[in-house]
């Protein structure tokens, strides 16, 4: 136990170091009209630099965006916009060891036995649940905070719950700092430290629920808090090799409620984990033989 406090303490100190240098800059505040260009890399970097972001990370974000497109992990214009507006590097800054690896396809260690999922997984999950502006979305497992950050670009009503108290506090503090810095879209995120098993009853029902932690069954309270016709996605399996289970809740004409389970790809078998790696500024495939 002592080691854990020691390690997380060190990470916090180091993160504070990253934070203090990075926070001096200011970001152009969020508005729903922000529209990052999707035509060329240079235009995107120029646009992002004008917003106040780091051109190196912007370049990596663009390259990963291209990989996401090719792998069909992202296709809707709103999700594309959300991806291009979200600074993964800020969420990776909690662990100096992964700070510069924020745009790699890998899942990354953020401490407390929790990983930050890769951009391909998050892209697919976000695009598949197809969040419309105004919808209520509940996320179970705040973790690094990046998944809720994507959703904050899609709807004003993002709710996220984290079970591990120090992690919940750390990510909340990160959102606050990012809001101060100009990423005002994160005001759309309501956070809570609690046992996600019981959902967020005061805010229920939800249109969409994203669970980012696995147990041996789908928590009944979450199914209860999902609107009829709603959609819940839950990854199953070890980090990096997860399948995403989609649970649909439907109400029949007679009022009876049924559920069905499938893969988020509607049952099609697709290579789920992306096989590309960012190698310098190039994207290298690992499965191209």
């Amino acid at each position, binding site marked *: 136990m002592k080691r854990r406090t020691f390690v997380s303490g060190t990470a916090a100190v180091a993160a504070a170091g990253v934070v203090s240098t990075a926070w001096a800059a200011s970001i152009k505040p969020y508005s729903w009209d922000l529209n990052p260009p999707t035509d060329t890399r240079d235009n995107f970097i120029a646009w992002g630099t004008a917003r106040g972001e780091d051109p190196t990370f912007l370049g990596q974000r663009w390259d990963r965006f291209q990989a996401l497109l*090719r792998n069909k992990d992202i296709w809707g214009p709103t999700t594309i916009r959300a991806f291009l507006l979200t600074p993964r590097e800020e969420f990776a800054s909690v662990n100096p060891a992964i700070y510069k690896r924020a745009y790699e396809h*890998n899942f990354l260690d953020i401490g*407390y*036995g929790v990983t930050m999922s890769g951009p391909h997984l998050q892209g697919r999950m976000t695009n598949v649940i197809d969040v419309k502006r105004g919808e209520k979305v509940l996320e179970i497992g705040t973790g690094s905070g990046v998944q809720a950050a994507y959703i904050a670009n899609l709807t004003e009503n993002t709710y996220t719950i984290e079970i591990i108290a120090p992690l919940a506090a750390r990510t909340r503090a990160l959102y606050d700092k990012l809001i101060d810095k100009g990423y005002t879209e994160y005001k759309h995120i309501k956070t809570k430290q609690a046992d996600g098993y019981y959902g967020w009853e005061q805010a229920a029902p939800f249109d969409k629920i994203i669970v980012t932690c696995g147990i041996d069954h789908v*928590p009944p309270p979450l199914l209860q808090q999902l609107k009829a016709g709603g959609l819940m996605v839950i990854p199953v399996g070890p980090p990096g090799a997860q399948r995403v289970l989609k*649970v649909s809740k439907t109400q029949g004409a007679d009022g009876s409620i049924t559920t069905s389970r499938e893969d988020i790809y509607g049952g099609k078998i697709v290579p789920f984990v992306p096989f590309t790696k960012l190698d310098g500024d190039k994207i290298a495939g690992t499965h191209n033989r």
Partner: protein
Amino acid sequence: MTVSVDLDNRPSLSFYLSVGLVAGSIIALQIGIMRVFSVGSWAHFGSLVVSLAMFGFGLTSAVMCVGKGWFERHWQGAVKGALLAFGPLMVVCNLAAQQVPFNAIFLISDPMQKWRLLANFVLYFLPFLAGALYLGVVFLKAQKTFSRVYFADLVGSGLCGLSVLLAMYVFKPDDLIMAPLLLWLAGGVLWFVALADRRGIAAIVGVAVLSAAVHYAAPPLLGIPKLAVSDYKGVSYARKFPDAVRTYERASPFGYLEVYSSSYLHFAPGQSDNAAFNVPKMPSNAYLGLYIDSEGPSGIIKDLPADETPYFRYLPMFYPYLLKKDPNTFVVQFGGGISTAVALKSGSKHVTVAEGNPALLTAFREDKGLRAFTGDVLNNPKVTVIDFDGRLYVAGTRNRYDIIDLSLADSAGLSSPGGFSIVEKYSYTREAMSAYMRALAPGGILSVTLWNKEEPPKSVLKLYATMVAAARDVAKDKGGSGDIANDFYVVSSYLSTATVLYKRGGFTPAEIAQLNAHTKAMSFDEIYAPGLKVDEAPLPQILQDYRDQFFFAGTPADPTAPSDKEPNDKPPPGAPGATDAKADGTPPAPVVPATVLGRLAWHYLINGGWQEKVADQYVFDTRILTNHQPYFAAYIKVGDLLKFTDRLELVQDEWGYLLLWATLGIATVFALTLVLFPVVFGWRTIFSRYPGKVGTLTYFLCLGLGYIIVEVGMISHFILALSNATVSASVLITGMLVFSGIGSFFSERYLDRARSFMPKVFLAIFLILVFYAFTIDYALDWIGTLPYVLRILLCLLLIFPPAFLMGFPMPTAMTTLGRLGKDHMFLWAWGINGCFSVIGAALVPIVATSFGLPAVVLVGAVAYLVALPAFFSVLKPLQPQAIGVARPATA
């Protein structure tokens, strides 16, 4: 003040005891490190680290072989140095390794992890190097009486191995390092007693006290862990819950058992999603979390009040109780007690429950907190407890049951980020399944529930095929038609659980209707029912798609290429190009390939064609579990192994298996390097006078491989009778080493007649092993039904003949080399033997998973047969040094 000693002539008893204890300390350290890895991270990485650490022997042998003169001159100093370093190195390296824990799940994605793994290798290698140096020098000095020293070495190792198991009751895993430390201290003191070296005694006692102090005092002072438990082990999450309280803790050879209570623990294994809308009152705080070696949790269920028991209906293990009223029930494995609770609350008139882990039974029977929480379930008058494997009990009993339940014996599910160790699952074999089926009363139901969390499905397909094979066996012995089509009913829930029901005598249409109604009410998927129509058409595409998921071929991804270059990457729903709706506008029904494949699997299993149409074409191995291959593991077909090397992240579950191949590969490279190093270095000098080099190499290679293969293979076999891997390992290690030690002792008498006597020994070993390979299962099955102490005694009796004889070849040859003055070869041979032991140990699980456990013993038998002719090379005398003397004709 020291006395001069001649180890070749009647050394004192304390010398032999010292050798035995230090050798035992090395074994104890191996076991201790394995335990540290099991509890802190992943057991199979522990095997890898320990296997490679054993190359300390190979390296010592190579160095001593090249620098023999120096070691002969400075042997006392070398032994003293090695001894004084061994203990402190154990403690310091172990503590240091805990500060650089590597995380298996990041091994691919994080470049730093490889260096951490390497640091673990190096750190754990160092103490073995010191231990090996001690033994190497002692062997070198006592080479003419090697049989006796070897006797001390083996018997010491065997008995100390057993003592570590006992030490597991005393020391928790984070302090288990104290066991080898104490053995080392005893061995060291006796060494200096043998030499009458009082300063040495004082020094080693001082060093020991200091080492123990470092182990106990440094972690709290420096704020570092004694044993770093990975953040990704189940127990680490429980420990972080704000209200977590550890309510029970007990260390024993059967695992480090912890029970946590927290409102954050939720269980309902395989629960229907419909429970959310229909259960009047969901039980709250109904579970404690059970962790064994930090793995888990398994749910320990509370004695639920009557208004909360309707929840059981929504669990998959409830199925048989739909059809059976007031059944006499048998639960194959108690685990956390859910199946037993379901049985009791669903109207069973009597429940017989088996549990092979004595530590669990002790906890539930004796701990006040657990007894109160579970309503003292094990002392319930309706419950009879069997304190050994349910599989063995069922095979031996005359009792018949209306329901036999085997549900979710694995704790958290079949998905582990670090991969799975290869473990024997005898409860799920064809033989076990047919025993359960035979123990059913007429009309009785066997209900087996397994985790179905793999995509593509792997273990469930093995389970399906195994149960069908068992049912056919049972159908045959009734002399009936062998038709089993009406005997099964199967359901699953995607990425949750699968349940197979088998009814003796077949299900009636009315029963099937009742089961179907329940399945619909639960929103589970029907996988098989008598008469279920299955469309065969999608099979080829599903099989191809699953293959393509791993091995699609296509043009290299060009960052600037258009997106349609991506092969087989079908658009997700909602994406452009995806068909979301049928022509009439209705949304398509969800098609889950894993579920369709399950239905097709049963279709072909029942109606024929499973092997050629499904199993042969499927991307993973789906061979059934038998007592010869009892593994839910090794799914990657051997022919596909190399194709996975650049996509390891896709088969993370299989890393335990892949690591075996990696270990074998690394071990082979290491071994050959170390074995050949002295040869290359001294081919023209040291070895020029030694005839029969290839023969000698072959001989010790065969002994190294053969001995360890038989030992490790037998450990897996003997779990059949002893029900527990830890007990089996201890009985086998102790039995084999002690009996071989005795063999070694006796071998001295035949030394003069070795040329005529040894071939008989090799032949006898070969014949006994071949006989055992084909017949030992029958003996072990029978032994397994006897009282436990008797089982251990009979198992020891069973291994005595081969183990005793297997004690002859090594010391006979070593002493011969010593007496012939082939000193370099003596050291070299010892190294060859050690190196190939490592290879042999790595080879066993690979042979076992690929060809079965009898094949393992046969490989061992063949190694001893090949050693027979090679023995004559060992007997060749040293060539005279004079140039021009003709070499012997046979050289």
